[in-house]
């Protein structure tokens, strides 16, 4: 499926330390269009740091981020966004005091002259949320009043605005119930069909095996193997995640 095409988004020898803690060590990674890549690893393996490096939330100490094969400096999430890379962070990065529409469009507000175009934004917000089969009571309630799963839906809907080429999701299923997880996985498949590249991180091997084309295992900041999802057993993945040799 990935073929020999140039990856839309790639990391080359990326390292990142927080003081003495080495969160990422010499990591290579590619995401192609029409592909779902899953990154799995234990708590503290470096998944969120990897997502940060891919989406401009943090700048790696060493190594390169490539978009369409050419090196870029993602100094800020808005830079990444401009290059077609959207992110759903683990903490969701929603402003609890703003309502759903305000959060969805934060940083990309529709305007009519000098003023905000609330009508257009509100209408499109409903369309986006319906497309995700997300159920929120109203798009005009502050996000503080939503459940964890509803907030997640808002964050995912926000990442879909403006048709990004790659969507990077950090632990998207962590706060979801069974049915919402199933719906989310269907959505990921739809995104792949529409030609987006998707990278998601997870703890749940089952979820990942259900949807991913490729699975990259992170362990203590290093890549500990890359697997074809269709041909890898649960036990093999578990071994790679925990580092237990068989």
């Amino acid at each position, binding site marked *: 499926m990935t073929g020999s095409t140039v990856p839309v988004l790639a990391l080359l020898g990326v390292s990142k330390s927080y003081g003495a803690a080495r969160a990422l060590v010499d990591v290579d990674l590619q995401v192609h269009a029409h592909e779902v890549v899953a990154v799995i690893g234990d708590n503290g393996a470096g998944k969120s740091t990897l997502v940060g490096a891919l989406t401009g939330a943090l700048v790696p100490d060493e190594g390169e981020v490539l978009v369409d094969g050419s090196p870029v400096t993602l100094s800020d999430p808005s830079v990444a966004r401009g290059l077609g890379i959207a992110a759903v962070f683990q*903490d969701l990065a929603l*402003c609890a005091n703003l309502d759903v529409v305000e959060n969805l469009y*934060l940083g*990309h507000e529709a*305007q009519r002259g000098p003023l*905000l175009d609330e*009508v257009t934004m509100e*209408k499109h917000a409903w369309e986006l949320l319906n497309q995700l089969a997300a159920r929120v009571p109203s798009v005009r309630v502050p996000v503080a009043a939503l459940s964890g799963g509803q907030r997640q839906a808002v964050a995912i809907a926000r990442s879909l605005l403006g048709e990004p080429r790659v969507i990077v999701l950090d632990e998207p299923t962590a706060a979801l119930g069974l049915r919402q997880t199933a719906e989310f996985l269907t959505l990921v498949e739809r995104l792949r069909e529409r030609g987006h590249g998707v990278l998601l991180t997870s703890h749940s091997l089952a979820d990942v095996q259900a949807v991913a084309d490729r699975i990259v295992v992170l362990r203590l900041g290093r890549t500990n193997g890359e697997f074809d999802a269709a041909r890898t057993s649960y036990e093999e993945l578990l071994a790679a995640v925990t580092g237990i040799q068989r």
Partner: protein
Amino acid sequence: MNDLGLAASTWQRLRTGDLGVLPVAVVLVLIGLVFQALNPHFLSADNLVNLTQQAAATGVIALGVVLTLHVGQIDLSVGAVSGLAAAVVAVGSVQLGWPLWLAVLAALAVGVLVGSIYAALHTRLAVPSFVFTLAGLLVITGLQMRVLGPTGSVNLPFEWWLVRFCQTAFLAPATSWAIVALVVAGYAAGRVTDRVRRVRAELPVAPLWQVVARVVALAAGLSVVVAYLGTNRGVGAVFALFVGLVALTDLMLRRTRWGRFVRAVGGDAEAARKAGVPVRRVFVSAFVACSTLAALGGVLAVGRLAAANQGSGAGDTNLTAIAAAVIGGTSLFGGRGSAWSALVGILVVQSISTGLTLLNLDQSARLVVTGLVLAVAVTIDALQRRAREA
């Protein structure tokens, strides 16, 4: 919704602070009625005109405080900045012989400069704003003394335009009514276009009677104020300027991208940054706007008193402006509030002050009462925050 449901939902909105400045406006009316009962002169048109004129300068400063509180910061030096601005106007125009407009511009430039320094300290070094603005308070007070020089006090001639604007300029009745008509028409037009667009987009709309009720309430409220003040000297130019600035700030906070960014940064700066908000620029705009409004407040104060001295902008002004913003209902925790809280808040503080003076109580009573009201306001703010998080 039945009566019980309505009462419950109103109580819920009150508890979480979703009613905005409305509760404080009710408190303001109550304060007016209490003082009127104690002294029949309190609600006289003459007294209310004085009250509005006195509130304007500090109110402009409070408006700046509202902006810094919105981004979750505080500027403790606004009084000192206003004092320095007053000194610059007086010394520049009277002692150095600059044209008055130039002295005013120089004073505003001081505000811009101070705000830029604060913004740089905050965004580059991440120092908490209450620390560096406290340092700024000392430095700026020192500069104010230096600018004023050994005499420590400079008077402005009464015939200068700034003094006349702040003391004796009132809107002509025709002008007042024209403004009322324009505001009401503009508000109604905005509401109706909004409603039409929402209907076309098949979005839920408020019932038509609510739109009509709001327009009628606005028209009635403004008319009563203008008519009643009109039985005396009318609406003061400086008060009109203050209200105009509040309305403009309100529009910018609620209906422009900048306003949305300000609220987002105040709610959660890191989340806003990840969403692509230029967080640094937002902080810069808030600090600069705050100090500049403080400087403008100082300019208006020097016009009102026709003098600048070492007491200009000292302790009292600082605390009054900050207290007014909080009493008016802008949260100390960032991301919540309204430009109107500067107006309502300063009117509460000024009413208490005027009312107690009418009762022949001195400064000490005024400070104690204002302090208690501020304490109540802060407590309510904290309780509302807890209710929102629960």
